[in-house]
């Protein structure tokens, strides 16, 4: 195999940029996208460059952010809008390669090796992609161009915003090696501390350390980091685009009254499962894991999850697994419940394929899915309450609860699952 050409494209301050585009009146103002403070999950998800320069950091509580930057404008996140932009960006990437591997919803690796004969070299393609994203989506990207995924990512981080950095075979010693070790993927807080204690401060230091020594200090990860630092990482950009750009989709609710019977819980689980399944379908995702979170009226809470046999976005299937998990892990007679969440995790896209088995009917599932899509359509046209499950009428106060959206968008691990 000859040298590969790999790009890593990173949308700069993704959420904040999309919001800026939709709020031209805020152009000269620092903006942060963050949770609604009243809903109690008040942290900064993304800040724009103006806010970052003033010291606002991702993960800060809203009140902290306001302390360092009083004129900061907070906007509540609109995840579905960002996912739409993420899809549009991937449509543009798709004009250059089918080998795309998203890393979170704002980053993506592209293997364009097969396109260089037709479209020009990596730098040229990166330039074209960057121009098109700017013109067609109104946001900017930083792109790294290299021959492996790790250096491509270092390249996209090298200069921001709206920049292209090459990290070729002849350049990486100059550009990548002087960077601090913590810039390397998988050098986190504790690894960085260990390395610093051993006098290893830069990526170049890692590259030039005896791999056996690194292994003795850091275990298997030491060897991996050595490979990364020397540009020897040869992990492929996944061909089939089966990973979802976000990690999970969940809904949770604090109920208007404490739940005291299994039936109460079942109603809420169905409400939540319907919402989760509808949102999975909206985005073209299915989940491989169902998770529930329970909190009793003493505010003690825990979560349980289970891998299921077939990836699903069918509400009945999600609700059944959720109810099983609940029954196996909780006895409502001991203590009433106050709040419940249902979440679909390990998301895959529609391109995901799986082995059929003899004991479940693919045909039946296909029918169920069609039925659910029909329900979506009826609800879209005539309102959410136009079509309801029978169970919802057992207690209409409970079934009318408004499920709160919440996503986890951290990227999956580099090594897959």
């Amino acid at each position, binding site marked *: 195999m000859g040298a590969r050409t790999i790009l890593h494209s990173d949308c700069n301050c993704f959420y904040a940029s999309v919001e800026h585009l939709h*709020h031209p009146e805020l152009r000269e103002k620092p903006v942060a996208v963050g949770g609604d403070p009243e809903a109690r999950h008040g942290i900064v998800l993304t800040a724009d460059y103006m806010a970052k320069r003033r010291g606002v950091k991702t993960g800060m509580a809203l009140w902290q952010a306001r302390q360092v930057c009083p004129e900061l404008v907070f906007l509540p996140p609109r995840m579905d809008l960002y996912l739409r932009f993420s899809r549009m960006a991937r449509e543009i990437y798709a004009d250059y390669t089918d080998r795309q591997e998203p890393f979170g919803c704002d980053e993506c690796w592209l293997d364009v090796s097969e396109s260089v004969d037709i479209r020009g070299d990596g730098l040229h393609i990166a330039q074209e992609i960057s121009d098109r994203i700017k013109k*067609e989506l109104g946001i900017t990207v930083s792109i790294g161009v290299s021959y492996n995924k790790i250096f491509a990512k270092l390249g996209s981080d090298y200069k921001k915003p709206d920049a292209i950095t090459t990290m070729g075979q002849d350049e990486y010693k100059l550009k990548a090696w002087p960077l601090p070790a913590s810039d390397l993927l998988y050098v986190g807080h504790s690894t960085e501390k260990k390395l610093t204690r051993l006098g290893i401060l830069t990526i170049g230091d890692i590259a030039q350390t005896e791999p056996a020594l690194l292994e003795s200090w850091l275990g298997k990860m030491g060897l991996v980091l050595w490979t990364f630092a020397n540009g020897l990482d040869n992990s492929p950009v996944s061909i089939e685009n089966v990973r979802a750009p976000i990690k999970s989709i969940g809904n949770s609710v604090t109920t208007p009254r404490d739940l005291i019977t299994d039936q109460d819980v079942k109603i809420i689980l169905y409400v939540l499962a319907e919402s989760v399944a509808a949102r999975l379908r909206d985005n073209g995702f299915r989940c491989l894991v169902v998770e529930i979170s329970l909190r009793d009226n003493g505010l003690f809470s825990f979560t349980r999850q289970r891998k299921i046999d077939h990836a699903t976005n069918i509400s009945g299937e999600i609700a059944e697994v959720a109810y099983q998990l609940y029954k196996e892990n909780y006895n409502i007679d001991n203590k009433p419940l106050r709040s419940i969440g249902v979440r679909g995790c390990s998301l895959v896209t529609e391109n995901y394929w799986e082995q059929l088995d003899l004991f479940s009917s693919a045909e039946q599932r296909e029918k169920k899915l069609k039925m659910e899509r029909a329900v979506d359509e009826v609800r879209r046209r005539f309102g959410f309450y136009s079509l309801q499950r029978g169970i919802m009428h057992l207690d209409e106060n409970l079934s009318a609860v408004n499920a709160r959206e919440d996503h986890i968008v951290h990227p999956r691990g580099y090594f897959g699952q």
Partner: protein
Amino acid sequence: METQKVYVDVMAEFTKEGILLPRGITWEDGRKYEITRVVSKKRAASMKAGGVGDKYVCIVDGREVSLFYEDNNMWFMERSGN
């Protein structure tokens, strides 16, 4: 600040090839304009009005104007001037 994004009523036709073509615009003050030609259609962002959509470059009264078809199925234009 006055918004630069103006949603407009649009008369449009579908060709038998399935192509959507705007034919006339009603501006916010009620005046109607005929679109005599559609020059191009491309996805584009409007930095000025704030939004993304299919951008139709149209000829109205001999002049080029841009009309955006947003994916909420609404049409908008950028207010001229600043």
